[in-house]
């Protein structure tokens, strides 16, 4: 292990410590996610005024936009964790990368579904080959590729390393795809609709959006903690610390 990694990070990366810390973080993160989510959605769906052009249809952005941000944020986390997993062969990084993938894929799917629901009243069609939507679709395929590759291996750690490599290739690929799709759109003069417009968003629309975004971040943290904990127990099945936990749970 490299020496420049601070000691506390090194300690945190040991499975038993992470298991304990993640277990402590999870309920708080989940509670914050639910609370902020409720506040943000109340602000967005009830308090915020209807849009003068789109009426109430725009309110789907309080789901759509935070999901879209999360889909990219989680991919970035996965890429960084995958990089660490490949360079330092850190078990925790493998776990974080691989357990992030399904959460990210879910957010991407929500983005696509809410985008197409929004597209119907906005553009009169469920799907449009808009640069942003197309890139998001490609992102979903990247996530599915990573998940598929991870599960194709019998050795899970090896699968995690291979899938991490694919995730890193994807990090390079996403901007290229976005660039090429934008170029393709100008070439074909498609129905490029500017989703957000250039006008500044009103404050009573903006704050719920930011609060929901924060809620999704906490939800991701809570979900990742839970997934990583179960995965660590599974991976470290034979170790002493897992046995201790199992004994403690078995005791009435």
């Amino acid at each position, binding site marked *: 292990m490299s020496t420049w990694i601070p000691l506390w990070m090194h300690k945190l990366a040991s499975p038993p410590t992470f298991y304990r810390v993640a277990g402590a973080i999870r309920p708080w993160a989940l509670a914050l996610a639910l609370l902020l989510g409720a506040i943000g959605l109340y602000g967005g769906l009830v308090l915020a005024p209807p849009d003068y052009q789109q009426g109430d249809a725009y309110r789907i952005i309080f789901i759509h936009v935070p999901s879209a941000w999360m889909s990219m944020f989680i991919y970035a986390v996965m890429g960084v964790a995958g990089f660490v997993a490949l360079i330092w062969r850190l078990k925790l990084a493998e776990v974080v990368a691989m357990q992030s993938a399904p959460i990210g894929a879910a957010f991407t799917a929500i983005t696509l579904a809410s985008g197409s629901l929004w597209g119907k009243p906005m553009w009169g069609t469920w799907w449009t080959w808009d640069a942003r939507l197309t890139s998001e679709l490609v992102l979903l395929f990247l996530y599915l590729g990573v998940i598929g590759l991870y599960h194709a291996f019998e050795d899970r750690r090896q699968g995690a390393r291979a899938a991490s*490599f694919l995730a890193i290739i994807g990090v390079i690929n996403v901007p290229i795809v976005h660039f090429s799709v934008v170029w393709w759109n100008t070439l074909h003069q498609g129905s490029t609709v500017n989703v957000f417009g250039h006008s500044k968003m009103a404050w009573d629309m903006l704050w719920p959006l930011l609060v929901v975004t924060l809620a999704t971040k906490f939800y991701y943290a809570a979900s990742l903690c839970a997934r990583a904990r179960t995965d660590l127990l599974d991976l470290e099945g034979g170790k002493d610390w897992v046995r201790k936990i199992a004994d403690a749970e078995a005791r009435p």
Partner: protein
Amino acid sequence: MAERVPATVTTACAAMLRRDLLLAWRQRGDLAMPVLYAVIVTVLFPFALGPDLALLQRIAGGVVLVTVLLAMLLALDAMFASDIEDGSLEQLLLAPQPPALLLGMKILAHWLTTALPLIVIAPVLAGMLHLPTAAMPALVLALLFATPLLSLLGAVLVALTAGTRRSGMLLALMLLPLCVPVVIFAAGAVAAAQQGLPWLAPIAWLAAAFILTVVLAPLACAAALRIALDS
């Protein structure tokens, strides 16, 4: 023990290339498969869409490109399969040469045996769909850059799946995001040529991507094989 002769990289690369081409020649029946597949798919389009000249002309470039890429995907899965099965890949990794270079030779051999026949047949397929002759050079040039890109990128992904139970569908899923830009630029060049617009810019993008990939992909391929075989 044999005399110690300085190992030369060129001899090794030549041996690699010669062996793979020889193997392809011994199984030359397999070489026809991707071509046959491309012909079948292309022929089905007019039956599905009707023999309307204007419509076929409009889709010709795109259909031929996608067909060629799918035909290549069909052959991609086999790139390392037999080498892993019979242990030649281990020998390759143990040779005193940079593995990336030897893998590059393997990819070259694969491109020569699967993509080159497809490029040769592509103008015929495009002609069947009434692609104007003026757009042919753009199509061939686009394929000349797009197919090696696909071989190189595909090789990295095939290497990643090397340690798994073989699954062609997974490979397709992994390759799709990578080949979206390739398809866009290649088809863009053909479409521009068809409309009488300048079409060199997208080809130049493809060429730039090709040069970058030809350097990086063999290295990535070697790294991926290390990961996939190290269990």
